[in-house]
């Protein structure tokens, strides 16, 4: 008699267990977890049409005070496919003045104040472009832009990181996307804007940024939305992080020759 009386409760309990299992399964399959090789992101991050599959690099790990120059840590042309070249006019070692006047700040004054507060000591930016320019972007080769910043202290880099990430997250149109974290802190965003030159293909910027100790690296790609996700940017970021950690050779890039101006004495 007792057994019969308990039967409805057992059925109810079994039903609840099944519902709970279903909810867990749905959570895992629909992307609520880190089920795709370690990819994760802040809550609300967007899973792209082609989800990130980049898992390279070290998540977490040491938090060093890196002394190598940012240009040495950055990516070399030889580390990209043969169809790339350096956009020389946009590639240079950054000074405090170029940093303070960069897009990160609303005014030069703000840049100067933040530079002093964060104790920035060096910076380097490099632009790579496919030799086929926008036409080759349509074939899947994005423009790549890398900024590497070095601060005197880890605390300075942390403060700069908070500012940079806040800047990116508040930029209208900027969307956080799913990507496996890298280094001590990292973020991944995309920004869809316009088309690739005069084509009808939507253009998209992806930006993967991270902090490793006293270094902040931000990698931006610009490509056709139909063929891009965060992975090219993240893979470049992971390559640079390997250099910062000493697990990949870091070579100073060949300096770009200073232009000469005949007739001006040099």
């Amino acid at each position: 008699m007792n057994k019969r009386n308990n039967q409805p409760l057992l059925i109810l309990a079994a039903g609840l267990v099944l519902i709970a299992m279903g909810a867990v399964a749905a959570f895992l399959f629909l992307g609520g977890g880190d089920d795709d090789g370690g990819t994760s992101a802040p809550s609300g991050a967007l899973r792209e049409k082609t989800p990130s599959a980049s898992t390279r690099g070290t998540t977490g790990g040491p938090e060093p005070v890196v002394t190598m120059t940012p240009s040495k840590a950055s990516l070399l042309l030889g580390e990209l496919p043969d169809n790339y070249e350096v956009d020389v006019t946009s590639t240079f070692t950054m000074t405090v003045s170029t940093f303070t006047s960069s897009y990160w700040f609303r005014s030069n004054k703000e840049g100067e104040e933040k530079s002093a507060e964060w104790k920035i000591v060096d910076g380097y930016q490099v632009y790579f472009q496919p030799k086929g320019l926008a036409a080759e972007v349509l074939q899947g080769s994005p423009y790549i832009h890398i900024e590497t910043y070095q601060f005197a202290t880890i605390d300075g880099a942390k403060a700069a990181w908070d500012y940079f990430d806040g800047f990116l997250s508040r930029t209208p149109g900027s969307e956080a996307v799913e990507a496996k974290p890298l280094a001590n802190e990292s973020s991944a965003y995309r920004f869809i804007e316009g088309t690739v030159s005069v084509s009808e293909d939507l253009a998209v910027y992806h930006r993967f940024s991270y902090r490793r100790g006293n270094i902040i690296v931000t990698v931006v790609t610009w490509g056709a939305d139909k063929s891009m996700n965060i992975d090219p940017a993240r893979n470049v970021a992971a390559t640079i992080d390997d250099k910062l950690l000493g697990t990949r050779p870091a070579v100073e890039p060949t300096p770009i020759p200073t232009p000469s101006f005949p007739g001006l004495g040099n």
Partner: protein
Amino acid sequence: MPRRLLLAACALAAVPVFAACGDDDDADAGAGPGTSTASAQTAGATNSNDSPTLATPASKYSVSIDDIGIAWLTDIANTYIIDATAYGKQPMLFGNEAEGKKLLTDWGYLEGYETAYIPEGRDTAVLKGAYYIKVETHLFKDEAGANKAFKYFTDYAATSGASPVNVQPVGNVSVAFATSYGTIGSTNVKALYHQVVFRRGNVITILLTKGAQGFMTVEPARELALIADEKILGERPAVEPTPTSSYKTPTPAPKP
């Protein structure tokens, strides 16, 4: 083949050049036969069945630099008047000089004009969506002769390897082709050629564009064709261009 040479090869035998251009596997060829008639015109086409008989000079009915804006430079080396004798010597088009002369006489060939435009920035601009342009204009004694020439051109093109492309009609009758040949400069980006050939009255006009894969369709060539067609119909001013070969840099007269 260098770009200049290729365009030069195209100059006097626009349709047959695609026979030499080889593969067309990346061209945006349509499924249709590539031939349209004025009666099938739809939005965007000049809505006229007029078939005028125009007099020389042929250059009046070409596309001028003023028609296309400031983003192009005239390719002066490839701008000239075509006479029947020179045109008949094109081996790719006619096989031999005698055959060329015979056909041109049969068609009543009067005169032709060719010009080309280079995008400012050249290949760098092409890799960002710009394109090269070449325009040929051929005048015949009458519509019947022009029609024979049009059929000859298009029959030749049909066996040349160029792919027919569907295009909104232009003129009394028109065809369009596309082909891929070579790359843009030293890049891996394939060069695409699009060509629209149309006849209006006693005039045959050939528009050729060269651009980068990913950007190019037949539409720019067709838009240029519409400009030429408007001139033939008198809907747009048809001005004889200043002969480039006689251009001299102005110099002040020496003072006594």
